[in-house]
Each structure stands twice: as structure tokens, then as C-alpha cells.
């Protein structure tokens, strides 16, 4: 537990000290009043705050609306099919989605190419500000594209297979149209399961750094990007300002979550009143709303497909839908660099995930043997890193690491990744582990197995599939991490994420596509492996006619 609490506590603690003007690990201190005065006088602060808020809320609402409207019209079969479609999209790191989306929607992007010149008449890329637009529309779209599959997957898991279906039948037989029945009957059962994932989505949308860097507005940028610009100022003079700004961001996220909570309460009351009024609205418009979700899913798929295209493109003049010349030149020329970056990323992901699995299993086995589940407080602490703004956490923790002269060391890197990987691995494994029938263990003990043997020979094999899934999730999370890698690695540990971000502000587009592609493929590979290794064991078919 301390392992998790320490980075969060010391991160926020060192921010607090710096913001109060009491401590600056990297430079001189002035008083707290000066620090905050400096922050509030900083050019672009309030527009940046406004942009963070609008993009965070808009993206979350968009993703939620798309999810609910799509599910409202989806039967059991479509839902099963959807589950298989969105699972791989969830695994892809947000940065890879953002880069792919940029290749897709840019003025010279794939969509413009597919529509030109026959529909648009464009012979050259139009002079439109489609990426990094000041209103943050591209950022909102990017976040919604990334989060809709996630919310869909959570919702599909929450709906299960039978119970909701029966409720819907009852509502239909009472005269409700399909969509109205869904919103009145299924949604109230589903929402509690969506609540925490939604908070995470909102917090991520408000605090994201790498997606905002690729797709977000620039003059001024969102708060997260602005904070990091200050923190990375070579003179170090702006560091206290960045620290104070990070605290402001923490406050903003907390406030935003409170606002969301109030909103969902109000809407819940309105919804109950609506259901009790007994109206028979058809809600025909919701069918059209489902199209929104399909559009977002399609954009996500397109973003993934365009990456290999760019990485293999030789010559690709504007309105052509496909490159004129294909070339593996990039992969040959940059091969060694790409391979070493890929190797480092994979190694870090494997090491972190292995450690996270070990700790999770120790905690869960201890819980099983002692019969006491972890308390609410401990669980909340575990999830805290998922809600804390990543920039604030990274800056504070980075300062603490710098104070300990640990920047750039493997333990620091591993620990920083563990803070994010462990919660996800624990969430993925705890449920299935706790659902193992305890009588299996009792029966094995009575059959003569020692306590340790029950763990190895009963519980571990019974949890094989979720164990592998948790490992894949851990790898996906680690591969996606940018800020913790940058900060703890001191810029000396290149991963796919750090290199791709460095290239995203105008570097070799083919190399950028290649890195983003690999960043997407690594988690996908992990999930494929987990699926194939986690399949139930195949037994020899029963002999013909022997079934009694």
C-alpha cells in the first residue's frame, strides 16, 4: 500500500510545498503570495482553464451519449458482436489514437484525400484549421473517439446477458417503445456501474497531456500543456508557477467531479419522474443518435488503419487515396532505432506488469486466507492515481524523485509506472479472484493439500484467464504512459510514447506513424496472446455414443 501512497502523497506534498513558496527542488523560492500572484498573472491561464473544462466535459458527454444511444437500439446479438469489436480499440493507447486521428482528419489527411477531388474539388490540401483548432473541437473528437469504446465495453459488461433483457420485456409489454423502455428501465440499472469509469473519463479528459498536445488548441493550449511548458522552461524560474498551477488543476478536477455528481443526481430525479409519469414517447430520434456512436467507432478504426499506411508510404501526393509508391525504406533506415525503442518499451511494460501481478496476487491471497477484504479507504487510495491529474502527479512526483536524486534510474521508472499499472491490474483481477468458489479450496484442503499448494494448484489455475487478461491490461497501461516515463526517466529513457510525442510537433511523419503503430500493436498483441492462452483447456472429445 505504501508503494502506491508514497508517490501520490509525496507528489502532491512537494507540489504543495513549492506552491507555498517553502521549497523549490530546482530553483530559488519566493513567498507563497508571489508564487500565486505570478500564476494568476500568467498570460493565457484562464483561457487555458476554460479550454480544459469545455473539452473535458464535452468529450465525456459526447462519449456517454454515443454509448447510451447505441446501446438503446442494440439487441443481444449486436451487443455480443460490439463487445468483440470494441475490445481491441480499448487496448490502444490514447496517444496512438490521437496520432492516427490527426493523420485522418488533417486538411491533408485520409478523409480529405478520399473525398478529393471528386466531392470537394480540392487539388491541394485546403487551408483549414482542422487540427489544433482554437475551440478544441479536434481534441474533443479525439477524446470521444478514444473513450467511447471504453464506455461501451464497461456498459456491455455491466448489462450482462439475461437480467436487463427480462426487465426490458416487462417494460415493452407495458406499452413502452424499445428506446423509451431502455432509458426508463435499463439505464437506471446500468448507470451505477458506469459511474466510476465516467469519473475516470472526465478526469482524463480534463488532465490529458499527450492527446491535447497532438490535437488540442495551441495559442493558448489547455491547462495541462501550459503547465508542462512552464515546468520545462530551461531557466527553472517558472517551476513554482507550474507547481501552483498543478494544484489549481487538482482543484479543478475535484470541482468538475462534484459538478458531474450533482448533475447525475438531478438527472436521476428527472428520469424517475419521467418514468413514473407513464408517457408513451417513442424516442424515434435516439435511433439517429446511434449513428453518432458508429461514426466515432469508425473514426477510431480508421485512425488505426491509417498508421501502417503512412509508415509504408513512399511518395503520396495530395488527393491520391493511397500512396503512389510503397516503401519499407523507413523501417530499414530507422530499424535499429525503432527496435531499441520498442525493446525498451516492452521490457519496461513486462517488468512493471510482472511486479504488479505479483503484488496483486500477494494482496488477494492474503485477503483470501485472512477472510478480510481490503477496506474502503485502501481501495480508494488505490484508485487515486487514476483520478489525479497526470501532470500534477508527474510534476510533484518528479520533484520528489529529483530531491532523492533518483531521476533516470530503473527503480524510479518502474515505480512510476507501477503507480498506474497496479490499480488497473488489481481492478481486473480482484473481481474474478473473489468470485472463485471458496469450497474448491476447502475441498482441496480436506483432500490433503497444504495451504500453499491450494494457491498454486487450485486458485491460480482457476484464475488463469483473468490473470492473463490483467497482464495484458497492465502491458497496455504501461505502454501508453508518457508523462511518468518522461519525468522519472529524465528524458534519458526513450519509449514509443516519449518518442512519438517528441515527433508529433513536426517531425518525420512516417517515423511518427511507425512509432504510433507499434504503440498500438504492442497492447493488441498482448491481448491476443492473453485471449489465446486464456482459452478454456480443450479436452479430448467424448467418445461417440458414450454420453449417458
Amino acid at each position, binding site marked *: 500500500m505504501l508503494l502506491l501512497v508514497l508517490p501520490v502523497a509525496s507528489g502532491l506534498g512537494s507540489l504543495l510545498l513549492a506552491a507555498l513558496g517553502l521549497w523549490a527542488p530546482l530553483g530559488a523560492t519566493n513567498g507563497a503570495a508571489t508564487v500565486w500572484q505570478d500564476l494568476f498573472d500568467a498570460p493565457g491561464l484562464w483561457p487555458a482553464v476554460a479550454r480544459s473544462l469545455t473539452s473535458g466535459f464535452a468529450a465525456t458527454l459526447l462519449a456517454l451519449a454515443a454509448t447510451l444511444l447505441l446501446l438503446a437500439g442494440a439487441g443481444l446479438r449486436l451487443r455480443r458482436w460490439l463487445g468483440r469489436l470494441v475490445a481491441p480499440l480499448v487496448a490502444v493507447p490514447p496517444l496512438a489514437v490521437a496520432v492516427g486521428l490527426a493523420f485522418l482528419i488533417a486538411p491533408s489527411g485520409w478523409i480529405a484525400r478520399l473525398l478529393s477531388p471528386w466531392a470537394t474539388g480540392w487539388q491541394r490540401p485546403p487551408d483549414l484549421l482542422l487540427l489544433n483548432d482554437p475551440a478544441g473541437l479536434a481534441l474533443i473528437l479525439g477524446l470521444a473517439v478514444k473513450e467511447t469504446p471504453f464506455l461501451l465495453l464497461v456498459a456491455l459488461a455491466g448489462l450482462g446477458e439475461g437480467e436487463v433483457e427480462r426487465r426490458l420485456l416487462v417494460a415493452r409489454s407495458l406499452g413502452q417503445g424499445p428506446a423509451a423502455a431502455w432509458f426508463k428501465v435499463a439505464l437506471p440499472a446500468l448507470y451505477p456501474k458506469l459511474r466510476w469509469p465516467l469519473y475516470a473519463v472526465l478526469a482524463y479528459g480534463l488532465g490529458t497531456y499527450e492527446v491535447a498536445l497532438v490535437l488540442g488548441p495551441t495559442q493558448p493550449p489547455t491547462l495541462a500543456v501550459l503547465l508542462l511548458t512552464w515546468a520545462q522552461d530551461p531557466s527553472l524560474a517558472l517551476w513554482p508557477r507550474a507547481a501552483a498551477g498543478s494544484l489549481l488543476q487538482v482543484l479543478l478536477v475535484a470541482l468538475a467531479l462534484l459538478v458531474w455528481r450533482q448533475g447525475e443526481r438531478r438527472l436521476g430525479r428527472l428520469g424517475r419522474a419521467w418514468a413514473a409519469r407513464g408517457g408513451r414517447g417513442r424516442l424515434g430520434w435516439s435511433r439517429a443518435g446511434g449513428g453518432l456512436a458508429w461514426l466515432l467507432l469508425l473514426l477510431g478504426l480508421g485512425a488505426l488503419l491509417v498508421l501502417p499506411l503512412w509508415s509504408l508510404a513512399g511518395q503520396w501526393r495530395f488527393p491520391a487515396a493511397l500512396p503512389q509508391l510503397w516503401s519499407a525504406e523507413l523501417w530499414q533506415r530507422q530499424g535499429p532505432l525503432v527496435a531499441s525503442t520498442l525493446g525498451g518499451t516492452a521490457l519496461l511494460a513486462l517488468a512493471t506488469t510482472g511486479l504488479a501481478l505479483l503484488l496483486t496476487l500477494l494482496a488477494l491471497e492474503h485477503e483470501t486466507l485472512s477472510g478480510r477484504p481490503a477496506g474502503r479507504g485502501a481501495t480508494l487510495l488505490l484508485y487515486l492515481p487514476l483520478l489525479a491529474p497526470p501532470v500534477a502527479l508527474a510534476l510533484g512526483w518528479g520533484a520528489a524523485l529529483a530531491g532523492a536524486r533518483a531521476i533516470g534510474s530503473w527503480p524510479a521508472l518502474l515505480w512510476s509506472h507501477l503507480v498506474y499499472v497496479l490499480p488497473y491490474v488489481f481492478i481486473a483481477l480482484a473481481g474474478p479472484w473473489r468470485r472463485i468458489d471458496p469450497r474448491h479450496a476447502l475441498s482441496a484442503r480436506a*483432500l490433503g493439500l497444504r495451504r500453499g499448494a491450494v494457491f498454486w494448484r487450485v486458485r491460480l489455475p482457476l484464475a488463469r484467464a483473468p490473470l492473463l487478461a490483467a497482464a495484458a491490461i497492465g502491458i497496455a497501461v504501461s505502454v501508453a504512459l508518457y508523462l511518468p516515463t518522461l519525468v522519472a526517466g529524465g528524458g534519458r529513457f526513450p519509449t514509443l510514447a516519449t518518442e512519438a510525442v517528441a515527433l508529433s510537433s513536426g517531425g518525420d511523419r512516417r517515423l511518427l506513424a511507425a512509432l504510433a503503430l507499434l504503440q498500438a500493436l504492442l497492447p493488441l498483441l498482448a491481448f491476443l496472446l492473453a485471449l489465446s492462452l486464456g482459452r478454456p483447456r480443450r479436452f479430448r472429445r467424448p467418445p461417440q455414443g458414450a454420453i449417458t
Partner: protein
Amino acid sequence: MSAGLTARALALRLDGRRLFRPLDLAVAPGEVLLLTGPSGSGKSSLLLALCGLLPARFQLEGDWWLDGQDLRGLPPESRHLGLLFQEALLLPHLTVGENLGFALPRRPGETRQARRARIAATLAEAQLADYGERDPATLSGGQRARVALLRTLLSGPRALLLDEPFAALDPVLRAEIRALVAAQVRRAALPCLLVSHDPAEAAALGAKTIKLLPES
């Protein structure tokens, strides 16, 4: 001390509260004793307590012996009390044969073939000759119950403790499995303690009955 399972003033406490009135037991080898009582009376917990498998919130009071030996200090795996639940609880990642192998203690110097032969012989005796390689999930309810009983017997128990073992079976199968249990208990000369909420089990098994009475 007498052979079989004996107990004096046996009682179970949960968080200090006694669950039923203290009782005396005497089950001779090859004999079945039925424990009945309403749900929540602690009869299933009593079986787990004898096996040493209950958390510390439960406390077993009184003295008890198996073949004159006091088992209280032993860990569950060394007590050799064969425990069976209502569900067969066969491990889904092992074949039927491997499930039996899971319970069969290793004999020093025994070859893998000899072990396998022992398992095959056990299956053949129970009319399950060709089932060694099968996925337990493909067995019928009655077959699963039979395999679970075989698995427990193979672990070399010195007594059998059965927790509602027939409750999940339909009446025809129930009679079949009940007869099988009775036959095995006699054949292996094991003292058998059977928990059921259905007092009619006693007549069917020709067993003595002890009713757990709530603490008044």
C-alpha cells in the same frame, strides 16, 4: 478408546455465541449418522470445523476423537477427513482422471503408469471406464457426483463428512448415489457423518439421526 468418530459436548461458537446445544456423537466404522436441523443451525459449519477449515471467528468446543486420536492440533490436510459438498466441485481445468490424480497421494517409488492404472481401475469399478480423459463439464450430474465421491475416497480418508450431498440430484439419481455412498461406507468401514435438512434421508439410509437444537 473406541474406533470411529466420537465426541463429547461438541458445540460451535460464532463470535462467542453458541449456535446449537452441545451434543454427544458416536459413529462406528461403516455406520452413517445423520445430522439435521434448520438452515442456519450450524450443521454445515460443524463439518468444516471438524476439518479445521473455519475462520477464527468460529470456535469448536468439546472433545472429539477419530479412532481414539485427538485431531485438534493437526492442519486440515493431515486430518484425513473426506469432505463432500452438495456440488461435485471438480476442478474445471483438469480431466476426470486428473481430478482423481489430484487427490491420490503419491506412493514412494510408484511409477506414473502404475498411478494411472490405479486411477483407471477406480474409474472402471464405478462404471466410468472410458471417462478418464473427459472434461468434467461434459458429465451428467450423477456422473459428477460419482467422480466426486471417488476423488474423496482415493485421498485415503479415515472418515467421511458429507454436506447435503444429494440435494442437487433428482429423485432417481439421489437413490442411486445414496446407495453408492452407503455401500462405499460399509466397504471401506468408514464412520460417516451426513448433514441434511431433510429428515427423510435417515429412513432411506437406515441411519441414526441427531437433530441440532437451537440454543434456548
